Each structure stands twice: as C-alpha cells, then as structure tokens.
C-alpha cells in the first residue's frame, strides 16, 4: 500500500528512514573508556593506515627542493610541518601497473597491489592489496582486521567508470582476495554501529551477540546444504559466502570477550554531514577511535574519489576537481589545483594531530603508527604514474625515523615501498606486485 501512496507525494522532500541514533555532529566530545589492551610500554601495538587522494599532484609544488633531513616543506606539504619529526617524503617512485587506458579505473586498485586488474570481459579481478596482507597478519587479534572508508557517494558517478572496466576498480582500494573487493563505507553512522554496536547494557549486548552467533550457525548449515545442490561456479560463490560467515563468527567471538571491557559507548553520529570537511574529519575521528580502542590495526581511507567533480569553495576553488585537474598547464588552474591539494593535506594533518594527541602505551598513537598518504597519479594533465606524490608519516613503533626527504632512483617501483612497510611490521614478502626489492635506509 505504502508504495502506492508514495506516487502521490512529492519525493523531493520525502525522506525515509529507520534511524536509530542521537544527534551529535562530531565525535570530538567523546572520551571513550577504551584503550588498546595489548599496548604496553614494552611491546607497543603497530598500526597501519592508508590515505588516498585522486588526481595526482602538482609535483613542483609537492616535492621538497632538497633531499635529506631538515628539508623545506613545499607549498602542498606545508600543513605537515608541525609533524616534521614524523614525516618521510618518499620521491622517485612509479606505478607501472597503473599505466594503462582507463587511468581513473586503474589507479585505485593498483596503488596498494602493483597488480593490473582484468579488463571487462575477463570478469572482476584484481590483486590482493597490502592493507589486506597486513590485516591477515596483524589484524587477526582485533575485532576488525581492517577498516575501509571513503567519502563521496560513488552512485553519483555512473557513466564515468565504465570505460572497459568494472566500477568496482574505482570504488575501492582494498582487495581481500583477487575476487573479493571490500566496499568502502561512506556513512559515519554505519561505521560507528559496526564498531560499537547498537549500545545498550552489557547484558543486552551479550544477548544480541549470542543471537547473531546462532543465526550464523543456522545460515552456515543452510548454505552448506545449498552448496551441494549447485554447480561448480555457483558453489564457489557459496563457498566465498561461507568464508565470510566464518570471518564474522570470529569477530563476534572477539566482541563477546570485549563486552565487559567496553566502557560507555560514545554517542553515534547521525549520518553523512552536509559539509565535506565535517565528513572527512568525522571519518578520521572514527579511524582514531578504532585504533584507540584496538578494534582495528589497519585502516584504509579514500579521502576523495577519482573523477570527483567536487568544488572547494572553502579554498576558493570553484572549478570541479576533475575538470581543473586537466589543467593544460594553465597557471591559474595549476594554482587552483595546488590549493585543493594543500587543503587535502590540511585534512590529513587533522588526522595526524588527533593521532599525536591520543595517548597510547608509553607514547601516542602517531608514535605507533605508519600512515601512507598519496595519490596513484603524478601529473593529472598527463595521466602518468611517475613520479608519485608519496608521504609516509608516523613513528612505526620505533621503526621509522622522520624529518627526511628520501629520493630513490627514478622509476623505483612503488611496490618496493609497500614491501618495505610490510617488513617494518615483521611481515616478510618475497614480492609485492611488481616489486624489485626493499627501499634502502627507509
């Protein structure tokens, strides 16, 4: 009945919802009684973060002029100056696997994998990304092996991602397996409820988790039966489904153990804020909160999307981001683009500041993190992938020394950096995508 009545209503103002939340625009005011259990002064927990921006950078305004320590911050990097002792600018890197037609579809899936995804006819397939490799190793003790977050609703990009490739490639940075892309959530409230549940007393929470468990048990039995009646291809889909069910069961077990530990659950945000800046900051708040509560140790965030046509009036950039990124060497457009890129860096600095001011064991979250910030394009005017704008920030629990601008041989594979980062987390790999070795002295 209701859908019939709807025909007579003006959809313009008709909002629908099943909201269960309390208004609170930012999580700033929350001081959760949560801390990482495993973090002790002797053995600090390591966190790994990735922050991605689209459309490359104006490299002349990104790369510091001199190498080594005490380099002068470039116009785009300037917001990171307060974190100098934790900043390593890494220059000279390239991503060869992104060098292909359909550049906006190629950039996100290759950034953390160095593996070129399949074309349309071959099905949706890409390489496993390093955030997921890390999640398999350092994320298994936490409820969420990794978090995948983004801003900007990709359903508003129809028609732009389909040049021979699935939109999946443009929508996510994280691939758990070559056929399991992980969706990046943009709604802070959904993220919040995943992290902290729906609130209630500890008894209510335990009861809910127990019901979840019994539901999953029954679902596993049913899917098992179903699988037997299916052909090979469909059976494989069901197997994948069952793998995911087991992953959720693992999370529920961990959540059950932790219900007693959780203090007062912070209040939930109400949804996607109208202001882009509030949205970005809220997503950063959630990542800091998740690190702080040791709900996850790996987080990947797409701060803005490939092909984004967002304007940035807050920095006097009234031309849409993607349009202006094809700057045609027009000095005015280059200036505008630089302002947008500097603005993104300011947002990143907000995240770093939160990490630095959040105590963790004998130091701060920033001391115990390694956060990679970058884009998988160099010049947005040329659609090329060398040299890539890349910054690594954080103490890495003593593994990373800041205040450096490291310049490697031109066209050094970006995957060498990724492999080096994994090494600092004691994850030894023979190869990551097209890597040729580790980066010396990083």
């Amino acid at each position: 009945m209701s859908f019939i009545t709807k025909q007579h209503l003006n959809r313009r103002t008709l909002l629908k919802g099943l909201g269960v939340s309390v208004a609170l625009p930012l999580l700033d005011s929350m001081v959760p009684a949560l801390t990482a259990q495993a973090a002790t002064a002797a053995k600090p927990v390591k966190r790994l973060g990735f922050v991605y921006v689209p459309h490359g950078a104006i490299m002349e305004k990104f790369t510091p002029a001199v190498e080594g320590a005490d380099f002068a911050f470039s116009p785009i990097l300037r917001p990171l100056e307060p974190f100098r002792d934790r900043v390593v600018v890494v220059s000279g890197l390239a991503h060869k696997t992104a060098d292909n037609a359909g550049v906006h579809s190629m950039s996100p899936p290759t950034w953390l994998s160095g593996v070129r995804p399949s074309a349309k006819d071959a099905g949706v397939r890409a390489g496993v990304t390093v955030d997921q490799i890390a999640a398999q190793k350092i994320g298994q003790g936490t409820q969420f092996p990794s978090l995948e977050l983004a801003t900007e609703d990709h359903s508003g990009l129809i028609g732009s991602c389909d040049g021979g490739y699935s939109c999946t490639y443009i929508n996510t940075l994280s691939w758990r397996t070559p056929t399991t892309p992980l969706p990046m959530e943009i709604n802070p409230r959904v993220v919040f409820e995943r992290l902290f549940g729906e609130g209630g007393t500890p008894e209510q929470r335990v009861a809910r988790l127990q019901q979840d468990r019994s539901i999953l048990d029954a679902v596993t039995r049913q899917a098992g039966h179903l699988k037997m009646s299916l052909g090979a291809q469909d059976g494989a889909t069901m197997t994948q489904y069952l793998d995911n069910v087991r992953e959720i069961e693992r999370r529920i077990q961990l959540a059950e153990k932790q219900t007693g530990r959780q203090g007062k659950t912070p209040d939930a945000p109400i949804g996607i804020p109208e202001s882009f800046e509030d949205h970005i900051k809220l997503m950063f708040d959630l990542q800091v909160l998740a690190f702080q509560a040791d709900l996850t140790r790996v987080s990947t965030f797409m701060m803005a999307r490939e092909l984004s046509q967002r304007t940035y009036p807050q920095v006097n950039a009234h031309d849409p981001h993607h349009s202006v990124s094809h700057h045609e060497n027009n000095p005015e457009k280059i200036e505008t683009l630089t302002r947008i890129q500097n603005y993104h860096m300011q947002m990143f600095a907000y995240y770093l500041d939160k990490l630095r001011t959040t105590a963790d064991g004998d130091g701060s979250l920033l001391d115990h993190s390694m956060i990679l910030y970058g884009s998988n394009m160099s010049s947005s005017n040329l659609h090329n992938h060398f040299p890539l704008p890349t910054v690594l920030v954080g103490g890495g629990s003593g593994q990373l020394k800041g205040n450096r601008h490291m310049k490697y041989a031109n066209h050094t594979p970006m995957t060498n950096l990724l492999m080096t980062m994994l090494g600092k987390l004691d994850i030894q790999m023979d190869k990551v995508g097209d890597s040729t070795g580790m980066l010396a002295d990083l």
Partner: protein
Amino acid sequence: MRIAGTLISCAVMLHASPSEVVRQYCVGCHNERNSTAGINLNTGLSNVPANAEVWEKAIRKLRAGTMPPKGMPRPDRTILDGLTVFLETSIDAAAVTPDPGPSILRRLNRAEYGAAIRDILSLNVDVSALLPADDANHGFDNNADSLRVSPALLEGYLAASRKISRLAVGDPAVAPAFSTYRVRPDLGQDHYIEGLPLGTRGGVLVEHNFPLDGTYVFKTRLALNTSAKVRGLDFEHQFLVTVDGVRIHQAAVGGPADEEAAAVSPPASEVKILKRLEVRVPVSAGPHLVGVSFIRKTAAQEDGYLQPWLRSNLDTQEQRGIPLVESISIGGPFAVTGSGDTPSRRKIFVCRPTGSSDEIACAKKIIAAVARRAYRRPITEADLEAPLSFYQSGKGFEPGIENAIRFLLTSPEFLFRIERSAQPVSDLELASRLSFFLWSSVPDDELIQIAGQGKLKDPAILEKQVRRMLADSRSHALATNFAGQWLYLRNLSGVTRDTKLFPYFDDNLRQGFRQETEMFFDSIVREDHSALDLLRADYTFVNDRLARHYGIPNVRGNYFRRVTIPGEQRRGLLGQGSVLTVTSYATRTSPVLRGKWLLDNVLGTPVPPPPPNIPALAENHSGITPRSVRERMEEHRKNPACASCHDIMDPIGFSLENFDATGAWRFRSESNAPVDASGVLVDGTNVNGPAALTKALLDRPETFATTFTEKLMTYALGRGLEYYDMPSVRRVVHTSSGNDYRMSSILLGIVRSAPFQMKRTGNR
C-alpha cells in the same frame, strides 16, 4: 568515356558481393599480417557464424558509420548497409538455438533488498543506512559479476535483519532513540512544498516509521545566519508541525522579543526558540507523514531580493530573510502503550493463536507465508525447521515470530538468487527473473501461484502477467533503477552548480529534473508508447518551477502534470534538464560529456577510455586563452592522440549547445557569443540544434532501438552482453519494429528471448 566509366563502376558496386566489399574496403587494414585493432577480417565470408565474435565487432562499427574511417576510401552508405545486413542475416540464421549465456548465482543488490523488504513485510526502510553500496558493471549495479560478498556486507545483513524484524513485528522492547532528517541546505523554502498543508511555505515532509504506540518528541532545528542567530527573526512567523496532515503543534518564531534576545545572546535565544518548537504527542505505531513548515505570509513580507521568486537562502551573508527548517528529529517511543496496528503487523500476523494448543500451528502458518515470499517459492516442511527453532527460542509468540523472521532475512535462500534447475529455467525461476527485471523485487503471491502450477511458460499467460506487472506501480523500479542508471539520473543528487553563475539552481530544481524524467519514462512504459517517443515525445511532466525553467507558459502550482511542449527543440529526453545537467560541469556545458553520453546511451558505440601518458598539449602560442568552449575543444583536438576519439565525441555534443549547464535555453554561450549549435554525427551527418539532432537520430530508428534493447537486456539479465547475445537482441528489435518499437513489444521480446528463458548447460 567518363560517363560510361561512372556507369560501369555504379553497376559494379550495385552488384558488389559482400566478399568484394570486404576485400576492397576492409582487409587493407584488417588482415592476418596487419590486424589493425586486433581485427582480422580476411577470413572469407563462407562461414561468417564461425567467426561471429569478430564479425559482431565489425557490424557495430558499420552500424555506427565509423568504418571505414574518415580519410579512407568509403563506398556509399547503401552498400555498407547491404554488407551489414548480409553479416547479420548470416549470423542470425545460424543462431537457431543461441548460446543463452551463463546464469550466475548472485545476491540481491541494495535496491532489490529494500524493495523485497517492502513487499515481504510492508515496511519501507532506508537501505543506504543499512548496507554498503553496490558497484556497477556494464552500466548497472545488478550485474552478477560485481555483486560480491564481503564481511562488511554480512555484518550489514545481520544488523539489518535485527532492526527490520524488530520494527516489522513491533517489539515492545525497542529502546527510545532519535532519528534526524536533514534538509539539504540548498532547498528553496520560500514557497509551498508539495505534500505539506496548503497555505504553508518551506519545510520538509518525512515518512517516519514509528515503532510502537507511544509518545514521541519532535524537535526542529532552524537555519542560522553567519552571526549564529536564527535566521529571519525581524518579523513573526508561525511554525507548524503536522502528522499525516493534522496539526499537532503551532508556535511563533521571530518578532521584536526574539530579535532583541538574539542580539543579547544568539545561543541562548536559539535554545529558547527551539524549545518553543518542540512538542511531545502520542502517535500510533506504523509509518506516518511528519511535516514541519511555516504558515505562509503575504508576498509583501518576503525578503529574497536576489531572485525572490526562487530562493532567498542563496546568500549566506544574508542577515534578514525568513526562518528556514534545517532538520527535524523524532525521538521515542516513550510511555509505550502497545505494538499497535501497523501495515507490517497486518501483513505478518495472518492468524492469532487462541491458546497454547494452536500456537505452533499459527506460527507455522505465519512463517510459511513470509518464507514463501522471501524464498520466492512454495515452502516445504523441511524449510520450516530452522525458522521454527528460532521461533521457539523466543520468549512468547510475537518475540518468536520476530526471531523466525530475522532468520529468514539472513538466509541465503533470501539473499541470493539461486537457480538450481537444468535448462530451461523452471517456472519459479522465471517468475523471479520477471519480478526482479520489472519490479526489482520478489514475485507476488499471484506470480508464485501461477509459476507453482507450472503455467507461467504458457505464452498467453506469460504475456498477461508481464502486462499486469507493468501496470502495477512496482514497475516504477524500471524508472528508478533501469532509467536511473541508463540515463545517469542517479548522478543528479551529487550535482552542484556554481552559485554565482547559476544562482537559481537549487534542490527543488534538482529533484524536479529527476521527477520529470522518471514520470516521463513511466508514462512511456505504462501507456505503451513507442521507444522512439523517448526521443520525440511532444509532452513532458513539469510543475510551475520546471515550466518557468523551460519557458512553458501557464503552469501554476507545485504539482507535476503532463504538458504539451511548445515547439520542437525541447522534445524527448534530449530536452530534459536531468540529462542536460548530468552531462555538464558546475560552471559550463560540456560537449564532450554530452557527446559521450549520446554515443554510450543512444547510439550504442562507446568510445574507448582515454589513454595513459597523454602527451602534453602544445603550448598556446597566441598567448590568448581561447574563449568559447568550442574554441577550447578545437584546440584540444589538434593533438592527434586526443583527436581520434574527441573528433567523434565533441561534434555531436555541440548540437545541444543551446541548452546551458542546467538545461535552460540560451542564445549566448559562456563567452557571450551567439550559440553555435552546429554539430556532426559520427557518420558525417550535419546537425544544427537539438531538433535537428533528434530528427537525424530518428532517421535511423533501429540504431536507437538496438541501443535501448541492449541496455534493457543487460539490465534484465544482470550481465554484460556478449557477441552470442546479438542475434537475440536483433530478434527483439526486428519483431518490435513491426509494432513501431512499442515498449510492450520490446519488453515482451526480451522476456521471450533465449537468454532470458534459458540457461547454459555444461561448458560451451
């Protein structure tokens, strides 16, 4: 002799065999040695079907008129058409039993999940707050290959099933909570908004699910100005809260006292005002329409001086103006009195136990009815085992039902579209294919019943069911999900326009555009018009706002109604603000985007994606920036790497230059020069202006009909089309051409086609 020579060559060409045409015009580039673009056409024409995969590519190029390319020898169009028909006929004749393609197990997408919940439990929920968004592939987000499963999705299913089952059953243990609905800041609130009480202006209408009979609190926030005061306090305004159109609260905002208080302390005065707007009232459980608005004052008291007929909230520095609603929060339930009587409860509780003796029997009946809709098939005793055990884990009858429903909503039988039968698909599987195609939802009881009796494949019954389903309001899903993606209407919600250049562009216009095209598409389907009417219809749907935007006179009032379009320039989809806006930038039109849109969605010949490592554009030696978009594009096309595709895209898009970046008609372009709307189609046809473009497109109606059928079939099958699907596509197009491409003949053609009715067996 010259004349004789001409005659001879004409005679030769008129009787040119297809082999000769291919030899003369194609194999020079496309041969074994030099297979340009990876295509070798020197395989002879004795067995075209054996090389169908390659020949289908050639057919597409020939149909589009892009081969042989510009600058190469090219015969008359009729000769190329002759070759095309020969190739198509050869392939189609061999495709007596075409490969129907794989049927891949896939999950419901987010839109289908929401529609299924609506139809199974009579409950409208906002799925975007429950499940992650789906990825589109081949243009649609119901594509089997991109509907993957992830831990986040499963967590979403678990949480959604809990919330939905609780709300549907009316669990008395539901904890009080607040839901907040925000108004987009660029919604114009100076005028009446449809659905709110007559005589009001601005505000918002919300459909809210009240979980239980109880007391609820309604809190409204008003917009602030840059000095953090509530906007528009200079005069008194009457604020109004309604539930289902009935006034539950009225309060005054503004006037001398409020203005003085705001001058002393903006935050304190805001708290005081918002407290006055707050109201607590008992509301019965179920969905209700909650409205907040202001009683309209006379125009003399309005204060929007920039463009007073549109919106006065444009200027963020504005210190005066009128009060505007920013958000409404609904909190509760408090003082619960019962679970109430809701559409969901009526749908679920088809029986009531009279005592403990018939409790299980009734529970079984309820669960079987829900399961039948959720699993889309008749239910066996074995199916009831698992949900019944969940029923028994509940503390009481209703909590038990809630648990059972929760299980059903997490069952893979609900979440996945599973087809287990051998080829062809079973009647029940066909019922699901039909309902997900036409409704984006589960089949209804009638369809399951007919399919359960094995009657759905009877051609007369199948046709009757398709017509019944199209007439049903649920087929609106074709407009929102199919057309919403095919035409990029879904992109509208994220579209913004530069406020300096387009001060009138607001949420009212944005939503109006979408509503217009959805209603237009609906009317083409429901009234069974020709698909060509999508391009040529002389009517559309507008309200006063859109009519003013389009220059259509004598339309008063906020409701959408059908109007005849004066003149020929704005006919069909290419004259609609939705399409014209999503193919423009925030500051200007984009002939490139419009050209690309036309190639992808109307002509069916997408251009390849841009190459990597674009060579740097030559410096602009003149030192003068080209002024018009056309000049800039021409500069761009001087680069051969860009030109190969932009030479095709841009000239088509120029023919729509009379429509600005919001779809309004204009005589002067961004550079203030008179609009030059001369364009060139791929096959070299010159077109000047939108009417000429539409006419040229309609000169070859099978091109658009084929593209439309391809798009619809991709959506219907949930997979990308392959070369072996093309005989089926052409059959639909040919059959419907005898019927002026009526929507029913295209839709029925797809439903009757091999890929829709059959599935691949073994490995082909």
